[in-house]
């Protein structure tokens, strides 16, 4: 670290929390490859947006990387075969989501050969047009691997349209327990750097800033070495502070830019991609490989041999846990990190692209402290990286005043969990917020539905009124015609009478 850099080293931010990171010993264990499971369950919805549409039939043979289901709609991503084998079924499996609802997945029986299908590598991606890079990235099914799972190519196009200048590469990995990105940067720094340079080319960014938390010295060294030849890629050490890996916080720490509420990062000239996403882009372009596997952390007190695994998409959580071994039955299974991850209903759910970690907690880790009354200590407010007032929001939500909670910033909450983590009264603040947001969304839907119903009713009554008007008009017209006809007839009669009169007179 140069003297200047040391002097201008990012200051310790005022927000956030510093949970015990518990990344070790898992982070230090060597990367292991999960033995290929016999069956893989590839969900059609592993991304934000529309579910993919299957293009294979049960019984069909596929090779690794073959398209299983294609993107459907503007925001969607295809899914590919994680290994070679035969499609067994297309049907429902349990989704990796606390609800435990079913979702559609393609079940694949592995043939054990793990043979790649057609691949179309590009020798020099920088010679390709940006659109072509986006197309290939989309075709490889690359989505944001930091957890957001937003289709990467859609973001490329957005970045190019909004003339993004700086690519921010998120190597923060601020969640405790997780070290998958750390492992990736240590093992595959060159891929990450090449991938991020391809992304820069795809979005037209002039430079890239890679933010890595200070608690990953090996990753920092590896990335520095890999990026040394590239003058436009800077590796920046950021303080280890949760939620440093959140887009807005990382952007502000690295560039000083504050993304306005309701705006996208690209609108202030930056775009954020995760290091794993960049590595996936590298593989998609340089090797023509679809996104079918990822590095993820399996950790937690109940895991016998915690560490990072290279596992195919569609492997069951149970396969992973069987491989690492367990100390008894885990008290809680979590997909993602402990701060923002979601509870898994059971281990019989498939791994998705966005899964950065699977945590199996023992009873001590899973213990939920009893919530007490709020003592207004203000810790939550000071921890909130968004500058919200969690205690006031929670108080309003408890009183059923959702609009007031929105005034205190409910809609700006990023659900990072800092407030609930720090609360000495152990109030499940985030739970209040998600509940309230659910209510608000339901209210909004109901409002829209009501508006739609009202519109329909209005249209109907308008139609009825119009019809009535038309009917009346028609009736009036008919009446007028009748009257006219009558008048005409009367006139004729009168004329006839008049004509007849002289006759009558003439015929006494």
């Amino acid at each position, binding site marked *: 670290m140069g003297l200047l850099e040391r002097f201008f080293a990012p200051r310790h931010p005022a927000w956030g929390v510093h949970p015990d990171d518990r990344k070790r010993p898992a982070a230090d264990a060597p990367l292991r490859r999960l033995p290929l499971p016999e069956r893989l369950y590839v969900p059609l919805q592993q991304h934000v947006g529309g579910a993919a549409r299957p293009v294979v039939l049960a019984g069909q043979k596929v090779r690794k990387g073959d398209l299983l289901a294609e993107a459907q709609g503007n925001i969607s991503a295809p899914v590919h075969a994680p290994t070679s084998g035969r499609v067994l079924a297309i049907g429902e499996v349990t989704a990796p989501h606390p609800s435990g609802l079913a979702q559609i997945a393609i079940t694949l029986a592995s043939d054990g050969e793990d043979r790649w299908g057609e691949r179309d590598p590009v020798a020099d991606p920088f010679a390709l047009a940006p659109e072509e890079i986006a197309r290939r990235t989309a075709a490889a099914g690359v989505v944001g691997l930091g957890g957001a799972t937003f289709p990467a190519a859609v973001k490329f196009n957005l970045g190019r349209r909004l003339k993004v200048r700086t690519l921010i590469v998120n190597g923060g990995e601020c969640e405790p327990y997780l070290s998958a990105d750390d492992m990736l940067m240590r093992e595959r720094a060159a891929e990450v750097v090449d991938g991020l340079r391809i992304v820069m080319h795809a979005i037209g960014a002039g430079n890239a800033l890679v933010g890595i938390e200070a608690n990953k010295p090996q990753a920092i060294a590896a990335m520095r070495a890999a990026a040394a030849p590239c003058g436009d890629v800077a590796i920046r050490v950021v303080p280890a502070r949760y939620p440093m890996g959140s887009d807005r916080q990382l952007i502000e720490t690295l560039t000083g830019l504050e993304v306005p509420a309701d705006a996208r990062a690209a609108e202030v000239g930056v775009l954020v991609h995760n290091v794993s996403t960049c590595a996936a882009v590298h593989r998609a372009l340089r090797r023509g490989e679809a996104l079918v596997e990822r590095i993820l952390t399996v950790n937690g007190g109940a895991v016998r041999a915690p560490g990072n695994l290279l596992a195919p998409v569609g492997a069951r959580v149970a396969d992973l846990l069987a491989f690492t071994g367990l100390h008894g039955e885990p008290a809680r299974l979590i997909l993602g990190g402990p701060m923002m991850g979601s509870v898994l209903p059971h281990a019989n759910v498939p791994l998705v692209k966005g899964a950065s970690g699977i945590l199996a907690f023992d009873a001590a880790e899973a213990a939920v402290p009893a919530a007490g009354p709020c003592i207004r200590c203000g810790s939550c407010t000071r921890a909130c990286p968004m500058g919200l*007032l969690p205690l006031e929001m929670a108080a309003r939500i408890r009183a059923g005043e959702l609009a007031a909670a929105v005034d205190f910033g409910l809609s700006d909450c990023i659900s990072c969990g800092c407030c609930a983590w720090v609360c000495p009264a152990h109030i499940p603040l985030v739970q209040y917020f998600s509940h309230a947001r659910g209510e608000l969304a339901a209210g909004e839907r109901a409002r829209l539905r009501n508006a739609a119903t009202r519109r329909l009713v209005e249209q109907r009554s308008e139609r009825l009124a119009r019809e009535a008007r038309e009917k009346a008009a028609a009736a009036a017209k008919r009446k007028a015609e009748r009257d006219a006809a009558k008048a005409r007839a009367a006139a004729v009669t009168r004329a006839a009478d008049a004509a007849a009169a002289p006759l009558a007179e003439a015929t006494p």
Partner: protein
Amino acid sequence: MNPASPALPIAAPHAATGAGVARSMLWVCAALAPATLFGFWLYGWPALHLWWITIAFALLGEALCLRLMGRAALPVLGDGSALLTGWLLALSLPPWAPWWIGAGGGLFATVIAKQVFGGLGQNLFNPAMVARVALLISFPVPMTLWTVPLPLGATAAPGFIDGLRITLGGLPAALDAMASASVLGHAKTELARGVDLLHAFAVPSAPTFGLDGVRAGSLGEAASLLIAAGGALLLALRIISWHIPAAMLAAIALPAAILHAVDPARYLDVGTHLLAGGTMLGAFFIATDYVTSPNTRGGQLLFGAGVGALSFVIRSWGGYPEGVAFAVLLMNALVPVIDRYFKPRIHGRDRRGRPLDIAGGDGS
């Protein structure tokens, strides 16, 4: 306590800080312990008896209310807040006050000033200070009857039994013999008699006032330096932040320094203001009460400054020699207003909550 707790599956975060309410409260009590022990030594057995009686009745009041509401008392008593309230109240009482002052005050603090408002976290006013002010207004004589320090072991000091009899109100003669004015009280009465401060403190009967704290006053008043040390401990443990104490002490010290320089015969000096009365106890332990103080840093500075300034005003020009308790209560009432105006700025929005302008869209 969380009646409408949404019935959701366990949600993130799946981790929590090790800190808890009870832990903070017990640390605060621990920070009070040295000053309290010093007070016991200085004022003898009666002080000790009054201390435990006050705390016992504060706990009793809390337990009674919880039982009446049909809730289990033990877990709530375990949060330490009633213990702390009783302790703070005891430290603000005249050490030789009769037992019913402590008992009534303790009950009043937890029943009327806390549970009636809805319990921990719901009270607008600091319970210990509400009780102290209620006692002061209702029973001005015993509440302003201070005693000369009579350290344990001194020949004239009452023993355990005599101490208990004093607390139980059985030895009025002993009390009268030991009566003395506090520094602030002495200053006020002398000024009211038309004696200026230069002469008032020159007479031999004037209360002594030294840094060692050997002087007349409440338990928490005598050992102001030990109280400040306890406050420093809380700062170091990050249980309190510096904003309220610093603002409050500055708001007392600044006008005191100016006015004392202008007219020393009329205004007490900075040292006396800071070390006498409830200044230190107020600054570190009372004004910093989470429940009854603002929860943003800006609001805390304003709140602390308000408590300090009002204390100074009441001491210098008000009807009572000491004003910290009143000042705290007055500022407590303003906390909702302060909280309304001192909101943190939401990330990505301006102070009024509108989204920031999109800047830097084109190269700069």
